[in-house]
């Protein structure tokens, strides 16, 4: 874990204080509360369902996603969207 602390990832979700999180997608850094993280997880889960992914790939091939109660709008291509899904899954995969 300590080895990883020096590495910068393209997508990273970090805890800042008890209820504040920071999401970094490429160069964009966004502050999120926990409910906003949950909301993001829900959106990303929906978008990355098999059916929706296929639909996205066959049409625009990207998604525009509102984050943090519509404070930020991000442009995500499919690989980035899947990375974001993995990052969120990793964060929540601990119960």
């Amino acid at each position: 874990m300590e080895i990883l602390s020096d590495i910068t990832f393209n997508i990273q979700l970090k805890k800042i204080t008890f209820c504040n999180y920071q999401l970094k997608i490429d160069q964009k850094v966004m502050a999120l509360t926990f409910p906003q993280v949950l909301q993001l997880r829900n959106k990303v889960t929906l978008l990355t369902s098999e059916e929706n992914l296929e639909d996205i790939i066959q049409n625009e091939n990207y998604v525009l996603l509102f984050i943090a109660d519509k404070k930020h709008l991000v442009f995500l291509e499919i690989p980035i969207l899947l990375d974001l899904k993995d990052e969120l899954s990793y964060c929540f995969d601990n119960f």
Partner: protein
Amino acid sequence: MKTAIRRQMTISTDVMDLLNDQIALEMHASASYLAMASWCDQRELVNSKAFFYKQSEEERGHAMKIFEFVNDAGGASISPAVPFVGNDFAGLREIYEMSLDQEIRVTQAIYKCFKKARSVDDFASEVFLQWFVTEQVEEEDTVRSILDTFDLMGDMPLKMIDERLPKE
């Protein structure tokens, strides 16, 4: 980061997702019962209409119970979209049969949540869901008893069968 998430939420996210699916299913059942109540109401089948209006309220009550639990446990409840429900029925018996099938689907979905809660050691959700397991036994039994009445009464007119159904 992982510990941070656990400090915000009591329940597992996998169970939370299934509970949100369950909310959608219960709301769908509520809407479906409302359609059945309307069919009975238009035909003056007073006991059946009262039964289905009450069932509709009950299903909504179940959805709300889960909705509040998920939020209370630190998760995020999702207000569901209610898909199309059929308003066209062939008869009263068919309505009760559909009602039993619907209750069985709800029971199976509750079992799915329960199994997931157990498999991920989400004890809070497991204990919460115990009430639903018991409730579903009661719900299925009520509809089965009504279908037994249909069998006993054979080809009697609808109105007469309706009068012999349990009053709410």
